[in-house]
């Protein structure tokens, strides 16, 4: 970092200029959002509450972050310095405004700030070795990834059992349901969408439509005709796949932005139909009292012919949850298995070739129409499976569960995970859905920010920040290595960062 030392003064000046500018922009941008707050007073007339200090805080936070980002080279140093500066600001804010006379918080904030800044200084000034060649590291990364995937699968299989012994049936219910089943549904949806978006490269903004179709297929077939879940599951998949082909046909000629728009519209159409076709779907009120899951015919009830009684166990609602957990795990693994196998078959390779360059595909004699349709159909089928599972888990469906937000979340999982990477998508689902659930747990923040502070409301803000951060540091997603699907002696992969995107 000799260059840094030589150009020290100019660099400091530049950092200060950058910081000042960023702070100005932040202040200007935050002015309409933060500075004025319209509120109804006692007489129910509108008064404007002025909150100029908020702008000051925003400008200081952004300015300090920009200052260190400009000043420092090492990313660890930058991150630590920014966090440290924020901690110091927070401490200063506590001291000045003394809204909370919480001496512990003050000590913690100042201490953390100083420590982080010290770490940043240490990181920045430390001599660093030249970065290793990325190509050489790639095979290692791949093996590590494979090991990780196996270990993670084993851990997920063991997860409910471990929790059950550790926390007991009562305590583990929430953890298995909210953190297990909920995440696995999204893992499965992510893997399903990954076929369409990640492998075939067809941007689908309406994936939730297939999820909805699967859910309503089970809900309506079971409540109207009394069909069992195990019969409805494949039916829901087939129905969704059929819808996928229906969607596929009109959009075959479209690419990129245009395709995305049509799929977005498709998702909305399905949602609107579900809302307005009251005779069939019961509209906003939804379909309720959907038959719950049974253990291959044995209901999870306290009755004598129930699951618990048959196996001589004491009745507990945890049995059903655990069964649901393993069911969705099996469905998700099935999705993953089929996708991984298909990638090594001509069809899967054709998907990837289509993503890379569809003109080249056609000139090689590949029927791109069929390739697109199979991708749509297969992706939709897994969405349908997940939907049927969703319906049997909830026991109730209505159109509000299938809004564009859901499509966006699933797409975000695929993009954050690294398009086409199974492990990456699973990791992203855990981070995003698990992260949402964790936000519900952060009650202690209420002590700091007041009773009406609800961390869950900041979910979208955090998603957005995560998205922007990822696009800066890992634009190809968490796992950006693409493994070749055929190989001679050993597999090799080149880091995705070295290769530019396909055109077409």
């Amino acid at each position, binding site marked *: 970092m000799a260059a840094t030392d030589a150009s020290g003064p100019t660099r400091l000046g530049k950092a200060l200029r950058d910081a000042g500018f960023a702070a100005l922009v932040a202040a200007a941008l935050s002015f309409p959002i933060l500075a004025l707050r319209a509120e109804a007073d006692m007489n129910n007339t509108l008064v404007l509450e002025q909150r100029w200090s908020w702008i000051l805080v925003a400008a200081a936070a952004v300015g300090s972050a920009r200052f260190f980002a400009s000043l420092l080279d090492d990313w660890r140093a930058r991150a630590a310095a920014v966090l440290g500066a924020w901690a110091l600001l927070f401490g200063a804010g506590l001291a000045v405004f003394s809204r909370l006379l919480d001496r512990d918080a003050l000590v913690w904030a100042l201490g953390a700030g100083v420590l982080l800044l010290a770490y940043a200084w240490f990181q920045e000034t430390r001599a660093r070795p030249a970065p290793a060649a990325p190509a050489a590291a790639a095979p290692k990364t791949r093996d590590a990834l494979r090991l990780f995937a196996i270990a993670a699968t084993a851990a997920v299989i063991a997860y409910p059992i471990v929790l059950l012994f550790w926390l007991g049936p009562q305590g583990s219910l929430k953890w298995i349901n909210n953190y297990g089943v909920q995440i696995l549904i999204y893992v499965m949806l992510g893997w399903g969408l990954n076929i369409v978006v990640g492998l075939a490269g067809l941007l689908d903004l309406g994936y939730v439509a297939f999820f909805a179709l699967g859910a309503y297929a089970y809900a309506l077939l079971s409540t109207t005709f009394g069909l069992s879940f195990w019969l409805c599951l494949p039916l829901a998949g087939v129905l969704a796949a059929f819808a996928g082909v229906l969607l596929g046909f009109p959009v075959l000629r479209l690419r990129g932005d245009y395709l995305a728009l049509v799929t977005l519209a498709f998702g909305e159409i399905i949602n609107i139909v579900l809302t307005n076709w009251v005779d069939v779907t019961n509209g906003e009120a939804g379909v309720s009292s959907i038959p719950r899951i049974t253990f291959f015919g044995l209901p999870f009830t306290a009755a004598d012919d129930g699951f618990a009684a048959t196996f001589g166990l004491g009745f507990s609602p945890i049995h059903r949850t655990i069964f649901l957990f393993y069911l969705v795990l099996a469905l998700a693994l099935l999705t993953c298995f089929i996708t991984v196998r298909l990638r090594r078959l001509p069809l899967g390779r054709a998907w*990837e070739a289509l993503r*890379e360059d569809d003109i080249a595909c*056609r*000139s*090689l004699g590949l029927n791109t129409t069929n390739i697109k349709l199979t991708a749509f159909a297969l992706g939709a089928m897994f969405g349908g499976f997940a939907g049927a599972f969703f319906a049997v888990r909830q026991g109730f469906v209505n159109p509000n569960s299938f809004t564009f937000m859901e499509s966006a979340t699933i797409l975000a999982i695929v993009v954050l995970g690294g398009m086409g990477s199974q492990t990456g998508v699973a990791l992203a689902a855990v981070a995003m859905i698990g992260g949402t659930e964790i936000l519900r747990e952060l009650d202690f923040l209420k002590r700091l920010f007041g009773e009406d502070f609800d961390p869950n409301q900041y979910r979208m803000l955090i998603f957005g920040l995560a998205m922007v951060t990822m696009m800066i540091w890992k634009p190809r997603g968490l796992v950006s290595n693409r493994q070749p*699907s055929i*190989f001679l002696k050993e597999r090799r992969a080149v880091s995705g960062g070295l290769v530019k995107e396909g055109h077409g």
Partner: protein
Amino acid sequence: MSAAPLLSLDGVEARYGSIAALKGVDVRVDAGEIVALIGANGAGKSTLMMTIFGEPRASRGRIVFDGRDVTNMQAHEIARLGIAQSPEGRRIFPRMSVWENLRMGAALGDPSAFDQDCERMFAIFPRLKERLHQRGGTLSGGEQQMLAIARALMTRPRLLLLDEPSLGLAPLVVKLIFEVIRDLNRQHGLTVFLVEQNAYHALQLAHRGYVLVNGAVTMSGPGRDLLARPEIRAAYLEGGH
């Protein structure tokens, strides 16, 4: 001359919206020939290549390959009849390895012939064997062109269409590529129809040549005859080699 041509275009017109890119083009490619089509930027060379594959579709005229009218066929159907293309800008699959690219070329063929065909490609382009596991996008321009040709050859075509194989390549690499095309033609009897801006190399290589100006063929004849014509020299070789 007496036998039916392998590929013939009769009065082919193609348009992009209201703009006519090809205005009644007649081209004939006989089996075993190398035919070059030269012309300036925007003359319609690449459009002609694409029109053979039906994109854009010929709005008038007929395209016949091996006695079959392919004018209204889908691109992938045309490819299956035995026409392979190394498209303009090479269009290899950048994130797939060299081997996977070759595999895509053989997607329609007999899978058991794949290894054998691969070995043939490595004999022609030893560089590809060295780069087998590298991603297409990390290859140099010349290697990408080799890969594009090899990928097209993996379909075991009877007619190879090459759209500007020399585009953006160093002179030495251009020479190598053209030698390979000549060898393929001489040793394997492959019929080649290539579109080039590099008129000198293309006409030296080709048995016959066509000159395309503003969407119409203005001159045709044996490659060396065309090279000798003063108007060709003036228009396409001025200041060149």
